[in-house]
């Protein structure tokens, strides 16, 4: 199962790439994939902000299970920030 990964802004810099392709041997949730990436790439693990997930350009919950050819984006807080959070 092949997944396309996309990183933006602070996460792109920390991932060292804007896009990666990844083969998954078994069904995986978006949240589990993010945990794996953070284990592999310490600079991602050091990111202290909130991260949202999008699959095929729609926001999804971390429990969403990935399908072949999905595009997963890791989305740091957008430029207006979040009205309900305190910086």
């Amino acid at each position, binding site marked *: 199962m092949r997944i396309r990964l996309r990183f933006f802004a602070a996460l792109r810099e920390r991932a060292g790439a804007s896009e990666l392709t990844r083969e998954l041997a078994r069904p995986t949730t978006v949240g589990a994939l993010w945990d794996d990436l953070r284990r592999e790439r310490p600079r991602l693990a050091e990111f202290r902000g909130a991260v949202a997930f999008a699959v095929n350009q729609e926001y999804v919950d*971390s429990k969403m299970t990935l399908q072949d050819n999905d595009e997963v984006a890791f989305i740091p*807080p957008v430029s207006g920030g979040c009205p309900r959070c305190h910086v």
Partner: protein
Amino acid sequence: MFEVVEHPIELSRLIVAVSRPDAGAIATFLGTTRDHNAGRQVIRLQYEAYPEMALREMRRIGEQAIERFSAKAVAIVHRVGVVEIGETSVAIAVSAAHRDAAFAACRFAIDRLKEIVPIWKKEHYRGGEIWIGPQQGGPPPAREHFAS
């Protein structure tokens, strides 16, 4: 009209795009780059988008503005790349039958855009730079699709 562009934004194009014979009001909003933030002097701003998703979310905001506020038409254009101080980074135009709906829908569109549209801003200062968002500390947002 929903666009992510790398060149300066011309508001007149958005106004033309939302002009309708049944609209008695057009409200517009321009977001311009500011030379300071949180007490630091900003010398340049840089925007980055997830363009396919940004366009999809911008179209959705337009549909919601029409449904919720009875707007007639909505145009949103966001600029990416380096934007010099004082230039426009985002423009919105909304037409409606009357001014109250046009103002309300325009306000909704910019507020929602800043909440959900995947576009990021990097502020460059003398001797530093920072991506804007709560990633520099503070609690994660209370939003279902965010994980800390």
